[in-house]
């Protein structure tokens, strides 16, 4: 198992991490202590029986390992790649205190890839209940809830506004981190459970809200799709993108293959990416692959970056320049971007997020010559549908207010994923969707 060399991989969109060989997987699985009270399972938002699937790998029984995984998680090839295991299952692995933790994510991916390439098995589904459930959005939360509810025997319809399913898995995460055939195969598995997918259906517009509320239960998983902009001067110059737009043009619309594909994207020679999260790393690495020299600008220090350490490492290997403790003050240019003015920041005190609070250092302004700027400073809950549903309680940040089981202020309407929590990870979205699906199932069966 290894990463492809940086100087090779920056010229294509093929996957960076090559995955484990069967021998490597078995050797890794044999290291597992098979704890009686496994901490790793507690660390997993979707409660995969991790020791069980690892035991099957150690025995060389890969199909059984896949079945054990899919009992709790229908998207294992995706999670194996994009979950922050280091802060979840692997972060609490008992082996971590003495040596290195079991590489649970790599093993999950190995099992899922192997199954996909051979003969995928489907979990059993219960007898039809005759209840109809509408799921809005086909991202990680929507897919997870749909799979759980279909397995429980309910008739599930997913409404997706784009022409492809997958939400952020499709438009957001680049192929070199999450290949699109992997996403498609796992979505197909969910659909094979009998889930209906209605693409090109924007709930609230193509499906009226009363039509939607006419289902026996509704699960809202519309995500945190609304991109934030910094609100600095020059933001609407040609050449300034939100990370959402830049990534959507490349990942969903294949603008990297223009003019074979019709959607264009600008190819900056020198690109500034603003932000320190996984999305910022993704945007920087995509811009690099389109031929740019990339500077990543982040207002705090590298230690404070919310991105996974591995992704920060990948970005650095690929030649992304890191300008930390730096914040943009305005974007320069007449019609197109020609530069960005920044100020150095000092870290002092601790802010509400528990991280060092950045303050501008007076007189430290400097400019960078760039011809493109990508803002990856976060997204907020998509207001479109939820603002059209009367009586749906929303929080200050526009998120749908839910209890622990995803219940909203409307009895048969549930919500999960980023629309409820604000921008978070794929696996957290899936975890909240599983809880909500269990509550929906209980409600539908209790009636």
């Amino acid at each position, binding site marked *: 198992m290894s990463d492809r060399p940086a100087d090779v991989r920056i010229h294509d969109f093929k996957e960076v991490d090559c995955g484990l060989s069967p021998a490597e997987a078995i050797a890794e699985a044999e290291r597992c202590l098979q704890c009686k009270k496994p901490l790793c399972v507690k660390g997993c938002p979707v409660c995969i029986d991790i020791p069980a699937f690892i035991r099957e790998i150690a025995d060389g029984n890969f199909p059984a390992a896949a079945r054990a995984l899919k009992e709790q998680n229908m998207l294992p090839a995706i999670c194996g790649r994009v979950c922050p295991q280091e802060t979840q299952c692997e972060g609490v692995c008992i082996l971590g205190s003495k040596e290195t933790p079991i590489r649970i994510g790599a093993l999950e991916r190995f099992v899922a890839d192997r199954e996909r390439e051979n003969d995928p098995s489907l979990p059993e589904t219960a007898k039809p209940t005759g209840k109809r459930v509408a799921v809005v959005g086909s991202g990680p939360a929507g897919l997870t809830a749909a799979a759980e509810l279909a397995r429980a025997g309910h008739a599930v319809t997913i409404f997706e506004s784009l022409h492809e399913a997958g939400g952020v898995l499709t*438009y957001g995460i680049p192929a070199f981190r999450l290949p699109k055939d992997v996403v498609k195969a796992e979505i197909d598995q969910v659909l094979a459970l009998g889930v209906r997918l209605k693409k090109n259906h*924007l709930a609230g517009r*193509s499906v009226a809200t009363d039509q939607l509320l006419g289902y026996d239960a509704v699960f809202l998983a519309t995500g945190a799709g609304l991109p934030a902009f910094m609100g600095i001067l020059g933001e609407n110059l*040609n050449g300034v993108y939100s990370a959402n*737009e830049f990534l959507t043009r490349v990942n969903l*619309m294949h603008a990297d293959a223009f003019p*074979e*594909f*019709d959607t264009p994207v600008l190819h900056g020679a020198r690109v500034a990416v603003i932000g320190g999260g996984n999305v910022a790393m993704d945007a920087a690495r995509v811009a690099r692959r389109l031929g740019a020299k990339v500077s990543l600008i982040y207002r705090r220090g590298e230690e404070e970056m919310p991105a996974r350490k591995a992704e920060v490492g990948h970005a650095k290997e690929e030649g992304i320049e890191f300008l930390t403790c730096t914040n943009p003050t305005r974007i320069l240019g007449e019609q197109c971007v020609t530069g960005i003015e920044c100020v150095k920041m000092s870290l002092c005190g601790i802010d509400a997020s528990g991280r060092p609070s950045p303050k501008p250092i007076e007189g430290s302004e400097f400019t960078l010559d760039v011809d493109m700027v990508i803002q990856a400073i976060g997204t907020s809950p998509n207001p*479109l549908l939820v603002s059209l549903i009367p009586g749906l309680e929303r929080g200050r940040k526009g998120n749908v207010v839910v209890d622990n089981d995803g219940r909203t202020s409307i009895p048969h309407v549930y919500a999960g994923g980023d629309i409820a929590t604000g921008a978070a990870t794929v696996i957290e979205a899936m975890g909240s969707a599983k809880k909500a699906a269990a509550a929906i199932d209980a409600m539908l069966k209790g009636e």
Partner: protein
Amino acid sequence: MYKVELATKLADRVYEYWIRAPQVAQHARAGQFIILRLHEAGERIPLTISAVRGDTVRVIFMAVGKTTEELATLGAGDSIKDVVGPLGKPSEIENYGTCCVIGGGVGIASTPLIAKELKEAGNHVIGIIGARNADLLILEDEMREVCDELYITTDDGSKGVHGFASDILKKLLDERQIDRVWIIGPAIMMKVTSGVTIPYGVKTYVSLNPIMVDGTGMCGSCRVTVGGETKFACVDGPEFDAHQVDFAELMQRQRIYTGQEKVSLERFAEHRCRCGEGGHHHE
């Protein structure tokens, strides 16, 4: 797949298409739009909903870029890969009194539906439609049917009044009370024409057409400055208070991909020549 039910050429490079899309047709209101993608390699482009009949919606477009040129090669019975809508907020239809609905060039496509809904809301509706010349003037009969009064202008005087819609609008504003004005057309035409209503303090709507991708508020490609604030035309619009719109920025942002658009169009033209495909369904 979404079937083209009827494809007609209305004028030089201007086409009228009826597309079967029940989920759009059942909910469409004046002022809204669709986004379509022709095939797997296609881009997503927004087009205003011009009319609705049963399960079909009408779009009217000018073949000016690669995608619209390619769309124009489709005939009745052909299919479009993806259609999503209705997108955007509907026009703010109320009984205001007397309303003026102005269309310029292919922008006339949007006007009958707005005029019709204003009429149904009880307004006295004055239509003004203008084009470069008589041959490019579209939907005259339809507008005559839904408007209480209709004025026609052409830049060259080949039909109606020799001049611009703004000339007629100014005359009307001097003569009588106008309560609301809608202007739909090229950005420069909307800028100039809406300038006329400023001294009269008449609230004026324009329908903005910036570059879009998803059309659901997710990417921010279509951001426009209205009243000093950044808005997304796809979900906050497409109609905005004309007097607050930064038209210079809109026009600047419409030019982001001029270079690539040219490459794409030339490549498509070459491909058509090689394949001997004329795209003459309509001639």
